[in-house]
């Protein structure tokens, strides 16, 4: 529906796309972390599928599903422990002990299968409980503690093996439900796999939806915060080990039912395979991050490699070597990436582009409208040293002045002589201010969207998100840099979102990037819907409804132009130039009392920046090699206000020749013969008389329906 304004940049289709930008945006995505292991999984499956005979057979699938289930259960337990900020190396030995115990219960004691299953899992949980007690309550180090319990449990397994293995080998008992656990099928799927899927689903729900899961994640992410939030760290930590032990017990039960064989060697080196699987799947060793899905992906990769190498008849040692290398590589990636992720993305996120820009008109030509003057010098200061960064200013029909503040305030000043009073703490820097028919103040807040502030100071969100563009990697549903707004007689609010890629305090990065990242939005109060009117617009800044209410004028700070976008009448939906190749950076635009428009130039163009705009490589090197405070930026120090006719003709310019009180002028409003001046970095508002005639019409310049 929205209109594409890309052509205004004067560049071709090829410039729309940037591999680097897409990559940076992709890397910023959380789900990308699962892409690498998933790609690896596809890779190893493809490799073994192509090189190994008999890999893609259903019987091989059945064979693998058993090992996947046995490894997967333990991996899920390990995931929970890792998410909780611990580690459990004793799992392999727990599997061995439970395997032997289950067989003793089944074969020698001849207990019912259900009892055997429950007790087996209970034994695993108890062994996990010992780990949990030592680590959570005695405060020992997880790695070394579980390494030692690994030894202790392994010794117990050997003890059982020594006493029972020869006896058990000669006993046999047949029970359908017992064989069913290890080798049965439900709807053609091997029973172990069914168990794994069910357990994985439960673990997924526990981790992502339950109070316990959230607490485990909280403890793993930051113990300090979790403690301050009143959580019982010891209990939560201990519970993760109990779960891990219970799942290892379940795995031991599966092995017992499948192999019916006691051996102290069962599960030897399992901790290593499991650790490799989960780390590879993207469960972070640093705690707090991990899902059941990732654990399963990692498990699959490890099992595919294991089975593939068996099919190829390779030595078992090769599997170990491959696992060790994978563990090292992925641990390095995990920890390095976790540490430097932000930095890395930041480094490549900004991708300078190019605009076609005409040569700037000569403002030094004698007698031109650009001649420097002192019309703004000596402007009356309002709220000096009280206000900080009033980017935009508006005066309502009662003569109240409203302006934003970079500390996140909205000020109300009762007339030019009044003291500023704090109307509301908005929470973000209001960049655009307007008043609607009911005297509510509408503001565009950087990083937040469009908000409404009532005369009592109540703040409420009006428009904070739009429908996401499906083909963009970056989520553009949030309104990142709402900049200016105006309201039509119908109450529809048109407002600009200057950048979909950079936040308010980084607006200059968008200027450096020089790509059309902005858009014009409209909000219809009758439907409550926000829609995109113009997309791919280069830094849309000021927005102003024309005097006849048929069109919207938009300033492009980056392309030094003003465009007219028709919202009514025969040309509805069309975009046409209003004033192009201006010598300054247009910021806000507002109606003047005489049927013309006021436009604020936040700064004048410089030949150096014009040149830089044509050289993306130059800017790329600059941001890489030069410290931020020495970057070449658009000039935002020499400001002026100009008057433009309905036809886009510049009539006059107003300057503060001394450049002292109003170094930056980003907005202006005419009210009752006076022009009110706002500036992004100023410590005051300014007021100068521009009209000798007391013109009552001009009082009604602002406010919807007040025209």
């Amino acid at each position, binding site marked *: 529906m929205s209109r594409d304004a890309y052509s205004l940049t004067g560049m071709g289709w090829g410039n729309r796309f940037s591999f680097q930008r897409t990559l940076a945006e992709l890397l910023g995505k959380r789900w990308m972390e699962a892409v690498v292991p998933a790609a690896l999984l596809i890779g190893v499956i493809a490799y073994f599928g192509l090189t190994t005979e008999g890999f893609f057979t259903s019987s091989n699938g059945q064979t693998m599903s058993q090992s996947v289930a046995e490894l997967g259960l333990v991996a899920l337990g390990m995931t929970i422990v890792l998410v909780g900020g611990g580690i459990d190396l004793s799992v392999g030995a727990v599997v061995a002990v439970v395997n032997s115990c289950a067989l003793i219960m089944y074969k020698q004691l001849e207990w019912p299968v259900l009892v055997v299953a429950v007790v087996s899992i209970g034994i695993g949980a108890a062994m996990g409980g010992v780990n949990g007690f030592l680590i959570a309550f005695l405060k020992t180090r997880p790695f070394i503690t579980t390494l030692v319990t690994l030894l202790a449990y392994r010794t117990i397994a*050997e003890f059982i093996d020594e006493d029972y293995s020869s006896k058990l080998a000669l006993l046999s008992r047949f029970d359908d439900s017992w064989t069913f656990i290890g080798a049965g099928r439900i709807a053609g799927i091997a029973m172990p796999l069914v168990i794994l899927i069910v357990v994985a689903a439960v673990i997924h729900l526990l981790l992502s939806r339950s109070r316990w899961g959230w607490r485990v994640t909280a403890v793993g992410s930051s113990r300090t915060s979790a403690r301050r939030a009143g959580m019982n760290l010891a209990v939560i930590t201990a519970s993760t080990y109990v779960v891990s032990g219970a799942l290892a017990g379940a795995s031991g039960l599966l092995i017992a039912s499948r192999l019916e064989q006691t051996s102290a060697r069962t599960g030897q080196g399992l901790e290593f395979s499991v650790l490799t699987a989960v780390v590879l799947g993207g469960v972070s060793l640093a705690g707090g991050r991990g899902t059941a899905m990732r654990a399963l992906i990692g498990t699959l990769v490890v099992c595919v490699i294991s089975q593939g190498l068996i099919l190829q008849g390779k030595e078992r040692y090769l599997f170990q070597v491959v696992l060790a290398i994978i*563990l090292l590589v992925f641990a390095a990636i995990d920890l390095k990436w976790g540490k430097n992720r932000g930095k890395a993305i930041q480094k490549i996120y900004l991708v300078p582009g190019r605009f076609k820009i005409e040569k700037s008109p000569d403002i030094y030509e004698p007698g031109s409208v650009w001649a420097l003057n002192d019309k703004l010098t000596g402007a009356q200061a309002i709220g000096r040293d009280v206000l900080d960064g009033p980017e935009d200013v508006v005066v309502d029909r009662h003569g109240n002045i409203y302006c934003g503040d970079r500390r996140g305030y909205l000020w109300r000043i009762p007339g030019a002589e009044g003291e500023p009073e704090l109307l509301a703490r908005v929470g973000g820097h209001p960049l655009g201010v307007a008043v609607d028919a009911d005297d509510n103040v509408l503001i565009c807040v950087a990083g937040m969207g469009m908000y409404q502030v009532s005369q009592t100071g109540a703040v409420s969100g009006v428009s904070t998100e739009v429908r996401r563009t499906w083909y963009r990697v970056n989520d553009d549903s949030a309104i990142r840099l709402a900049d200016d707004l105006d309201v039509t007689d119908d109450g529809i609010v048109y407002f600009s979102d200057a950048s979909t890629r950079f936040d308010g305090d980084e607006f200059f990065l968008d200027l450096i990037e020089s790509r059309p990242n902005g858009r014009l939005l409209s909000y219809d109060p009758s439907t409550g819907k926000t829609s995109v009117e113009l997309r791919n617009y280069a830094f849309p800044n000021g927005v102003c409804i024309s005097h006849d209410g048929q069109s919207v004028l938009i300033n492009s700070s980056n392309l030094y132009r003003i465009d007219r976008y028709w919202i009514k009448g025969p040309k509805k939906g069309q975009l046409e130039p209003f004033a192009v190749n201006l010598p300054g950076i247009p910021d806000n635009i507002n109606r003047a009392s005489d049927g013309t428009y006021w436009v604020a130039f936040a700064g004048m163009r410089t030949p150096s920046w014009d040149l830089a705009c044509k050289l993306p490589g130059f800017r790329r090197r600059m941001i890489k090699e030069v410290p931020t405070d020495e970057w070449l930026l658009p000039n935002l120090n020499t400001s002026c206000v100009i008057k433009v006719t309905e036809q886009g003709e510049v009539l006059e310019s107003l300057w503060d020749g001394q450049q002292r009180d109003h170094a930056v002028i980003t907005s202006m409003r005419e009210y009752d013969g006076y022009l009110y001046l706002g500036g992004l970095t100023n410590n005051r508002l300014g007021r100068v008389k521009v009209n000798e005639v007391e013109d009552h019409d001009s009082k009604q310049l602002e406010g919807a329906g007040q025209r």
Partner: protein
Amino acid sequence: MTNTTKTPTVAAVRRRLLSGDQGYIVGGLLLLIILVASVTLDSFGSTTNLLNAARSASTLGILAIGMTVVVISRGLDLSVVMTMGVTSAFVVQYVVNGNAELAGLMWAFVIALMLGLVNGVLVAYVEIPALFVTLATALLYLGIFRMAYLKTEIMTVPSEAHFMRWLGRDSVIGVPNPVWLFALSAGLVGWLLSRNLGRYLYALGDNPEAARLAGLPVRPLTVFTYLVSAVAGFVGGISLVSVSGSVDLRTVAAGTLLYDVVAVVVIGGVSLAGGRGSIGGVVCAALLIGVIGNVMTLLNFDTIQQALAKAVIVMFAIVLDSVLHPRDEETARVGEL
């Protein structure tokens, strides 16, 4: 004169005792157990038995000395036992293949350095936590050597290996050679730790960030500790193989020697938190573990009971260590010690 030289020593001992230097406690415990065991167990007190205990403790002691250097610098080398296994197996296989023993020993030394270098670089430069690095490299080294060079897992030291045969069987001045090797290693590393380099290692273990800000070459120092550990693995391996007359990689891979090494280091007062401990304490702890093993055998503990007892002792030592030198749980991460 005697007074002036003695007083500071006495004061130092008292200070260390008051500050709770574990080495002294362990030393006292060692003497106590030896005394009690000599009185109550007939076969214990004999010189042969004591020398045997010392001999069986020497391999453990040599490995523990290497590990001490790593742990003082706040690392841990789980691959030291495997380094020991593959380097000693390499020497035996090399000689079995009909090559000169000396060349085999030199090659094995070079290999040990390379294995240590891999560990060190992965820890110091790639910044993977030491535990994960050494857990993985232990399997990596075994796998690579088994596939590439070693024909079997169990090999007997051939009679051509004169040096190893001498090392394992003979003694100098009545003390078995491995014990000399142990003493020599302890002396060398003890001396090293008392030099500037040693102080750097303590500083590194106590507070790596402060050490870095103070201008210490933190990364090369870390690599150095793993080199020391790997060399200790090599020396300990030669000692073990010489004494036992055979090399058995299956036992190395599945055995409990690693736990004994960790136990000795922790019991010896080298905190896993880094920056603490002395070689004296570790030597005492190695002898203590050796004597305890010896006593357990004399008391008819079977291997499984011994392993369980060891696990309990190690666990006790670790719990004690975490009570005496608590880590900052708030900032601790998995993989850190």
